[in-house]
């Protein structure tokens, strides 16, 4: 029995695949799956959302998003004037099936959201930064457009489908895998979001023209919004990604106004009783 001091061949226990090749393959794979799921979910939701009866929607979501005002609590006066303005705008949408509610959220960033069940939430930041009634009317008209197109349900459906995907990725993979999947998915859904915004703008613009006879204020709203607020993160960042406040959108607005023969200039109404409630 003799000892042989040979050393085994090097590298048998290590795969020879180049790490960068592996990285490319894996990143591409995760991104492809996330994009496929995001697009499939968006398409499926687009097919289903218009067929959900409004009564069902209202029944399902009633009470989810309103503030839950106590009986003895004073109603924010801003809410009343907003509701009045909303009523006027919705009046130009005769087949409107919703009974809308206004919610004011105590958030400094300017934002407005259409929520399932017929709730329109606007933030303090928005109310403090608009300069005329027309601008506010356009925002409300835009949100009404989301309701008409059932975009609020689409957003919700895509959000749910997307969260499921991220949970599945999170079960097996790391947090960076989740991050990668969410980036890829958001990128894929961006196109769907943008189309919705343009359509909502078109509807908002039509209501604005019907109410005031001109569409002054719509453009101004976008022009001074980008200067507001600082860098955003978290949930609010999604406002900027879904409501892209860029030249493209203003361009699209001008195009629509021109196409329909709506006047871009006109007298704007002052804001009434929208100063913050004491």
């Amino acid at each position, binding site marked *: 029995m003799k000892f042989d001091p040979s050393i085994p061949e090097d590298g048998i226990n290590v795969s020879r695949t180049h790490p960068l090749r592996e990285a490319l393959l894996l990143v591409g794979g995760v991104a492809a799956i996330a994009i496929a799921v995001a697009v499939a979910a968006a398409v499926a939701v687009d097919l289903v959302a218009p067929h959900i009866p409004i009564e069902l929607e209202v029944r399902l979501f009633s009470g989810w998003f309103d503030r839950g005002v106590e009986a003895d609590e004073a109603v924010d006066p801003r809410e009343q004037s907003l509701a009045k303005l909303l009523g006027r705008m919705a009046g130009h949408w005769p087949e409107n099936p919703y009974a809308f509610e206004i919610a004011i959220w105590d958030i400094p960033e300017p934002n407005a959201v259409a929520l399932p069940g017929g709730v329109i939430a606007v933030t303090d930041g928005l109310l403090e930064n608009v300069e005329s009634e027309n601008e506010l009317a356009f925002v409300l008209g835009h949100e009404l457009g989301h309701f008409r197109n059932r975009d609020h349900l689409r957003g919700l459906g895509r959000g749910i489908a997307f969260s499921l995907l991220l949970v599945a990725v999170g079960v097996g993979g*790391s947090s960076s895998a989740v991050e990668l999947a969410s980036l890829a998915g958001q990128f894929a859904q961006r196109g769907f979001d943008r189309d919705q915004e343009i359509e909502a703008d078109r509807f908002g613009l039509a209501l604005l023209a019907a109410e005031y006879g001109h569409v002054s204020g719509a453009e101004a709203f976008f022009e001074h919004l980008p200067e507001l607020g600082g860098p955003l993160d978290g949930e609010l960042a999604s406002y900027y990604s879904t409501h892209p406040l860029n030249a493209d959108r203003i361009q699209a607005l001008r195009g629509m106004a021109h196409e329909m023969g709506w006047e871009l200039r006109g007298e704007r109404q002052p804001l009434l009783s929208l100063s913050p409630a004491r």
Partner: protein
Amino acid sequence: MVELGVRLGIPLALLVLAYFTGAAVERRHYASIRERELRWRSVPAITFRSVPPSWKVTECTLITGSVVISVDYFKRFLAGLRAIFGGRIKAYESLLDRARREALMRLKQKAVERGYHAIVNVRLETCRMANARNSESIAGLEVLAFGTAVKLRNAP
């Protein structure tokens, strides 16, 4: 766009940095392992439970060699993605290979420094040291090599 840049840029920079430094560290480690493997190739380290019959043992002792080695950010990233698809986690193979060979070399080095000639009944154990704050990622891997070092009258 700025927001996207921050979200992508920092991890990406970290990945690139980790890839290059990790690869350099690995290259250097392998060079050192190979050098020592050659230097101590004549010291037998075997898994036999008893010594070969021709050896005349004069002294023996339990001896250990261990190393805790950590994973770089790039490899951890790859492993995290691989866990979605399943299959070989190639990124961790070299890590374990290095750790094991390092532990074995430390075992041999210790034995030689104390005047022993060979190690029998070599065992290797692997233990994961979990990150205290984030249990899904690993802080490091410990590999322990142990065996019985023997002094021989007729050194091989």
